[in-house]
């Protein structure tokens, strides 16, 4: 049953009563920027019921979804990367597949393969998990380069080629991959060119003591049970993506500001290769997402760019080898501290446009 609630401009579908006694609705279509904000709040609320202390990561995960970008969640083992990805996917009413990357994972395991059908006397294509709206790839760096390449090509092109035929992937299509920075044995590092395909790399650090206790409190009551209500439909995500790209404007001054920040990363002495023009596009899209979900604005301000710059740029910089060696000596920050400094310096060198 479809209910059109004109007061808020949202098209909603009645689903079920949740544990708190509220009737949950799945958002189906988005027409105004405030609806994008509403979607973000709904997803965020669902995730927060289970994940404690990663508000910024969750926010940026939602921004990526609404901007049509892919996300790499990076953090040490046991920090709830997969748990967050599961909670995130649970809040979306769309097809989802999880791939556990291992060294023997083949491209056909992801894309699909042709299987002989003895009844029809012909080969039929059996779709792989890539033909879903949301793919959670656990420990992506454990997959061999050939498989990573197949996956990352699909991420960029939003299509796959099997036996010479090109097949379109579902829309929306988002990949949430997880990776940890400490293991090298049995892993295959993602090439920089492929890392560039992720809109954001979200680095998950340890929670604070208060958050860790709160997490324990929840586990003490519910254990590992996750009962997240899907609150947003694929059609709503698609219309939100379209609205975000067409209705949120960045002035020429803001475009120059974004381009200049990205270009500054290329001039830094510590950087061997700075961020690419694709990074400028990613920074624009993420800034638009931030403008929409933080304040429901239809224009981008410099503070939006600053807010997402680190997560958009940190995986796109190749540091000089000697600098990299020096930065990874500090095992506590895994070299992220230096990336923070470089990106902050790049931002600070650029005049804010007004």
């Amino acid at each position, binding site marked *: 049953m479809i209910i059109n609630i004109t007061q808020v401009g949202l098209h909603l579908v009645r689903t079920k009563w949740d544990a708190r006694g509220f009737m949950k609705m799945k958002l189906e279509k988005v027409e105004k920027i405030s609806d994008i904000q509403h979607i973000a709040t709904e997803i965020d609320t669902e995730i927060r019921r289970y994940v404690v202390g990663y508000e910024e990561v969750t926010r940026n995960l939602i921004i990526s979804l609404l901007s049509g970008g892919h996300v790499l969640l990076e953090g040490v083992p046991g920090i709830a990367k997969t748990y967050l990805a599961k909670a995130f996917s649970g809040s979306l009413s769309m097809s989802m597949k999880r791939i556990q990357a291992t060294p023997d994972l083949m491209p056909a395991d992801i894309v699909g393969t042709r299987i002989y059908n003895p009844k029809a006397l012909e080969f039929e294509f059996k779709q792989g998990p890539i033909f879903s709206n949301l793919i959670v790839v656990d420990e992506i760096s454990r997959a061999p380069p050939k498989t990573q390449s197949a996956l990352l090509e699909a991420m960029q092109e939003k299509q796959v080629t099997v036996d010479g035929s090109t097949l379109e992937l579902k829309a929306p299509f988002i990949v949430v991959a997880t990776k940890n920075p400490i293991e090298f044995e049995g892993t295959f590092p993602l090439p920089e060119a492929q890392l560039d395909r992720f809109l954001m790399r979200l680095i998950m650090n340890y929670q604070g003591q208060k958050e860790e206790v709160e997490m324990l409190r929840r586990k003490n009551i519910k254990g590992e049970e996750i009962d997240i209500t899907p609150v947003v439909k694929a059609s709503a995500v698609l219309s939100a993506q379209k609205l975000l790209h067409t209705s949120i*404007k960045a002035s020429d001054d803001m475009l120059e500001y974004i381009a200049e920040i990205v270009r500054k990363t290329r001039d830094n002495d510590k950087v061997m290769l700075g961020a690419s023009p694709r990074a400028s596009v990613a920074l624009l899209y993420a800034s638009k997402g931030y403008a929409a979900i933080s304040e429901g604005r239809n*224009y981008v*301000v410099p*503070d939006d760019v600053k807010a997402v710059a680190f997560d958009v740029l940190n995986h796109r910089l190749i540091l000089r080898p000697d600098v990299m060696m020096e930065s990874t000596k500090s095992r506590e920050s895994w070299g992220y501290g230096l990336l923070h400094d470089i990106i902050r310096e790049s931002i600070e*060198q650029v005049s804010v446009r*007004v």
Partner: protein
Amino acid sequence: MIIIIAQIILLNRNYLFKIIKGNEGNGTSRYDRKVKTALKSIYRISISRGFNFRTSTTIREVTGFLQVQFPDQSTILTQLTRSLESHIYGSKYIESDDNKYYAGWATFSKNEMGR
């Protein structure tokens, strides 16, 4: 002396300063007179309160600093920031509802600068 010269150089690179001086583009300001006046007073008061201006300073960072300095002006500053940003970055006209915030800030800044 060196610090003062360095500060002047930095200020000249800051776009907020350029707006106030009216040389942000081709010499004529693109912005509403009320916006320029508000920015000018925000700028002056923040400097007098020891705000450390940098090339990358945004309007929101300055008004955020002022909100801490003058908690009683918090609502006005929040609304003023929204209005200034929508005019500068969103190319919108100043809404008539916003006039009270500009007037409120003008009164406050006049008293503050007169001290």
